[in-house]
């Protein structure tokens, strides 16, 4: 049996770990398996990659263990490690002992623990701010439907410092017209607009799929963030009302913007 082609990807906040993996997937003809080791209930990266990258399969930790016992030939595996995971604490199962270790770091980074750990250092995006005590805050929103205008106001406030210093923020949100939107912010990089994920419109009640948000920052006003997000959410009646409107438009053969 061929040795497994496994790559562990680590690196600093906002350096572009997920982006780098996405680029690798585009250049390979093989089946790609992806797992984010620290995602838990808030799987923003996994959901984003699964929706946007054809040929990529997202596995849970349990599924990965099964896969390692009975691997399929011709698969490449990428395991993404969060910035806050202690690299020395990772105990890898035997089949992964020979895996490749890649660190994605901002240009000019030297003498970090990633350098000692990685086989390859990839130059990623420039870091515009360095936080003394980066704090990760995340929240699962699955089942919630947000009002688009409110979401835009919240995202503007969040990324302009209304709730603390933000270095990195990304989120997937279900909105009233049934779309699932991906928002991405890295401090210092040009502002990107939100993008619609390649997922079907959800028009039957509360969506049974992942949505959620991850924020890395300092002095985060967590209560205010949570309250504002809550205030952006629609109630049952409003969800039903908007979904019916979209269904009617589709039925009439009209283009839904």
């Amino acid at each position: 049996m061929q040795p497994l082609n496994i790559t562990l990807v680590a690196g600093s906040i906002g350096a572009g770990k997920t982006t780098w993996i996405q680029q690798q997937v585009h250049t390979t003809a093989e089946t790609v398996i992806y797992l984010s080791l620290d995602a838990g209930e808030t799987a923003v990266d996994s959901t984003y990659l699964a929706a946007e990258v054809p040929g990529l399969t997202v596995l849970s930790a349990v599924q990965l263990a099964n896969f390692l016992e009975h691997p399929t030939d011709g698969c490449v595996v990428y395991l993404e490690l969060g910035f806050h995971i202690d690299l020395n604490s990772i105990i890898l199962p035997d089949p992964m002992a020979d895996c490749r270790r890649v660190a994605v770091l901002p240009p000019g980074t030297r003498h970090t623990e990633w350098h000692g750990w990685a086989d390859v250092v990839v130059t990623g995006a420039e870091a515009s701010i360095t936080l003394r005590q980066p704090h990760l805050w995340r929240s699962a929103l699955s089942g919630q439907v947000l009002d688009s205008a409110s979401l835009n106001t919240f995202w503007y406030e969040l990324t302009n410092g209304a709730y603390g210093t933000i270095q990195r923020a990304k989120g997937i949100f279900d909105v009233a017209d049934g779309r699932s939107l991906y928002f991405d912010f890295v401090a210092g990089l040009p502002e990107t607009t939100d993008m619609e994920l390649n997922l079907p419109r959800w028009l039957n009640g509360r969506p049974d799929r992942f949505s959620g948000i991850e924020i890395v920052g300092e002095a985060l006003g967590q209560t205010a963030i949570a309250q504002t997000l809550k205030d952006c959410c629609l109630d049952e009646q409003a969800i039903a009302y908007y979904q019916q409107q979209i269904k009617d438009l589709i039925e009439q053969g009209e283009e839904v913007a």
Partner: protein
Amino acid sequence: MKVAVMSCIHGNYEALNAVLSDIDDQSADKIYCLGDLVGYGPHPNAVVEMIRALDIPTCQGCWDEDIVEGLNSCECSYPSVLAEKRGKQAHEWTDQVIHPEVREFLAQLPLSLRDDNLCFVHGSPHNQHEYLMPEVDAFVALERVLVTGADILFCGHTHVPYVRSLDAGQLQIRVKSTGTTERDVSFSAPLKRIVNAGSVGEPRHGRPNATYVIYNTDADQITLREVEYDYQKTCAAIIDNGLPPIFAWRLARGLEFAERADDPTHVCER
């Protein structure tokens, strides 16, 4: 004669004081106020008491009406559910702290004021909730001025100051009545203007400075004034008084506390 016109103070006592002092420096002869004395800001009672003490002719704004009549507009008044929730928080806070005599004063404010060829309203002559945006259709804009019979219509409500001249207005109407043939009548409207005074206490032009206007009747000249004030004091009072801290964050950036409605000319009929 110099006429100073201000609007949308929204309980921001610091901003009001700074504007009154600037009006004094500009040696204005008269002051008019276009309403929205309360709502969002931390000092609604003090603002109203100051306006009363100086006997400034004032018309009723939409927030003044809501504090008197109770909040009864539908979600159409808000651009988002978030803005609606924040608006309601601000309304409830103001409703709790407002003094009975202040409420009585707001209740008796007129919807419009007239001074010779000048007319003063909060939103539009039709309703204090209607937004006359600078880009509103020229016919609609002209109709709003013509209906008052004045030459210059002063309004507020949008929180962004502007001057709009409506000249060379050609109107064509068709008169139909039973028993007579149809008749087309054309006439040209004389020069009319809409002047938006911006906002003293809750600006939306991207800077925290208060805005108001001065009209010099002799020179027929309109000047938009932008006045710096200690907005950090108002921000601190917002937080100290238990209003949502996001109001202070937005005030410091000239972003207004909520935002205007999606369809600015839509007027809630409730």
